[in-house]
């Protein structure tokens, strides 16, 4: 028998952080820039909202340095909804993360969508009570973020493009390598650890379980209900939608349609029904036309 659990309550443990990520599975997390959009997102069935000043499509258009949002904006959104509120800090900017924690956000996204603050180090996420989500393009990156204390991994995709191709590439890379790892000989795991630049203990763990030790969500380029169904069928456990909702013709309807398509991702007839007559999706961008690839940020 393991030791009896202590009756003294403990906050900010890894179980508690990961637990919130688990509760969001099967849902849609929506980017919102004000309280009004947050209400629309909650009404549509969002499991959480991501508070930020500009959606990625606008950050991409405007250029310059993108930073943490004004606390007033985050507080306004917290007051408007009852679902969890997430907010973004720059990669490596632990002081922005401390501010977000002090504001009581439910999850911090250490995000490549903002301009990185540190070119070598990510935030030491074990030092925080608030849980963190981090982006990843491949399994090694995902395991490095988990070793730093991330309680959720999301694909980076290519934010603000309305083009799902990069998110698919990242999910296939992470999930494909997980499948290959389960076939590896114990001696080969050292080679894998070296190649992935990830701790051997974590490599051994995922080789045994076949899945990451935290939930894997999809982000970056989701614009339609069918996009959501696609990434869920590929193995994502929930979906982030950034610019895809509020850059479309009818955000309320599209938001709801993506929520339903995520919940019923295997039901093509339902995805067809909710996709019908949604109006224009956000304008998309081909990868070859981009000046800045956000997914290349982070190390």
């Amino acid at each position, binding site marked *: 028998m393991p030791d009896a659990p202590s*009756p003294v309550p403990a906050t900010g443990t890894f179980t508690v952080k990961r637990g919130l990520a688990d509760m*969001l599975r099967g*849902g849609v997390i929506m980017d919102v820039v004000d309280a009004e959009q947050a209400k629309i997102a909650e009404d549509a069935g969002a499991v959480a909202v991501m508070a930020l000043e500009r959606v990625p499509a606008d950050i991409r258009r405007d250029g310059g340095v993108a930073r943490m949002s004004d606390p007033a904006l985050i507080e306004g959104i917290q007051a408007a909804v*009852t679902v969890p509120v997430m907010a973004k800090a720059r990669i490596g900017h632990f002081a922005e993360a401390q501010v977000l924690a002090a504001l009581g956000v439910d999850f911090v996204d250490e995000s490549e969508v903002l301009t990185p603050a540190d070119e070598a180090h990510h935030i030491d996420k074990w030092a925080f009570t608030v849980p963190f989500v981090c982006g990843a393009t491949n399994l090694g990156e995902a395991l490095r973020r988990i070793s730093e204390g991330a309680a959720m991994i999301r694909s980076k995709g290519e934010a603000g493009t309305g083009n799902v191709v990069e998110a698919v590439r990242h999910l296939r890379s992470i999930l494909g390598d997980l499948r290959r790892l389960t076939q590896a000989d114990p001696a080969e795991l050292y080679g894998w650890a070296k190649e992935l630049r990830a701790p051997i203990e974590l490599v051994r763990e995922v080789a045994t379980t076949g899945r990451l030790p935290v939930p894997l969500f999809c982000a970056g380029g989701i614009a339609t209900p069918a996009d959501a169904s696609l990434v869920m069928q590929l193995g994502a456990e929930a979906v982030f939608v950034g610019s895809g909702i509020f850059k479309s013709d009818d955000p309320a309807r599209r938001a709801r349609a993506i929520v339903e398509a995520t919940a019923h991702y295997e039901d093509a007839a339902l995805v067809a029904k909710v996709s019908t007559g949604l109006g224009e999706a956000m304008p998309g961008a081909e990868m070859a036309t981009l000046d800045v690839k956000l997914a290349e940020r982070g190390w």
Partner: protein
Amino acid sequence: MTIGVLALQGDVREHVAALADLGEAARPVRTPGELDGLDGVVLPGGESTTLSMLLASSGVGDELAGALAAGLPAFGTCAGLILLATDVLDGRPDQRSFGAITMTVRRNGYGRQAESFECGLDVPALGGEPVPAVFIRAPVVEAVGPDVEVLATLPAGTGAAAGRPVVCRQGPVVVAAYHPELTGDRRLHQLFVELVKEHRETRR
């Protein structure tokens, strides 16, 4: 015997795994037809506002309300507790309340994620060691009806919430404000499985 797990959103997989550990093959429920022939249903953790919307859009909500009113055994954790309660404070006006257990609950009653916690919990009905209890943005049970049996309350040292009911039972309905499915301790799921068996035999 067939137990269903409402699979519209939330930590469905953990409940299915917990029941599998006890030898029960659980069936995910996403459509009204999938409720047919169930001996019991689990309402998992998740986001109760999202679950409310999806219960309505899928048509599962009305069917499930009928089944619960007819006495279908149910087990709800966290968001599942909120859905099974009679009265919800700080919820949305369109939030679904099945009213299967007479209690008033306050959503996110302990606060935001920073206040989420885990602790050992004495549940005398489960016997032995305390159970590991993980509370994630958990609902606070403010009041319970006379027919509700309180199986556990929060220990002293949990601040303003100390003494609040966190595991309750009324007839064939069991609810927990925490997430037994997130730990390896299967005793509360076992209690529910036994309740379902009992209920099935008395209906024969």
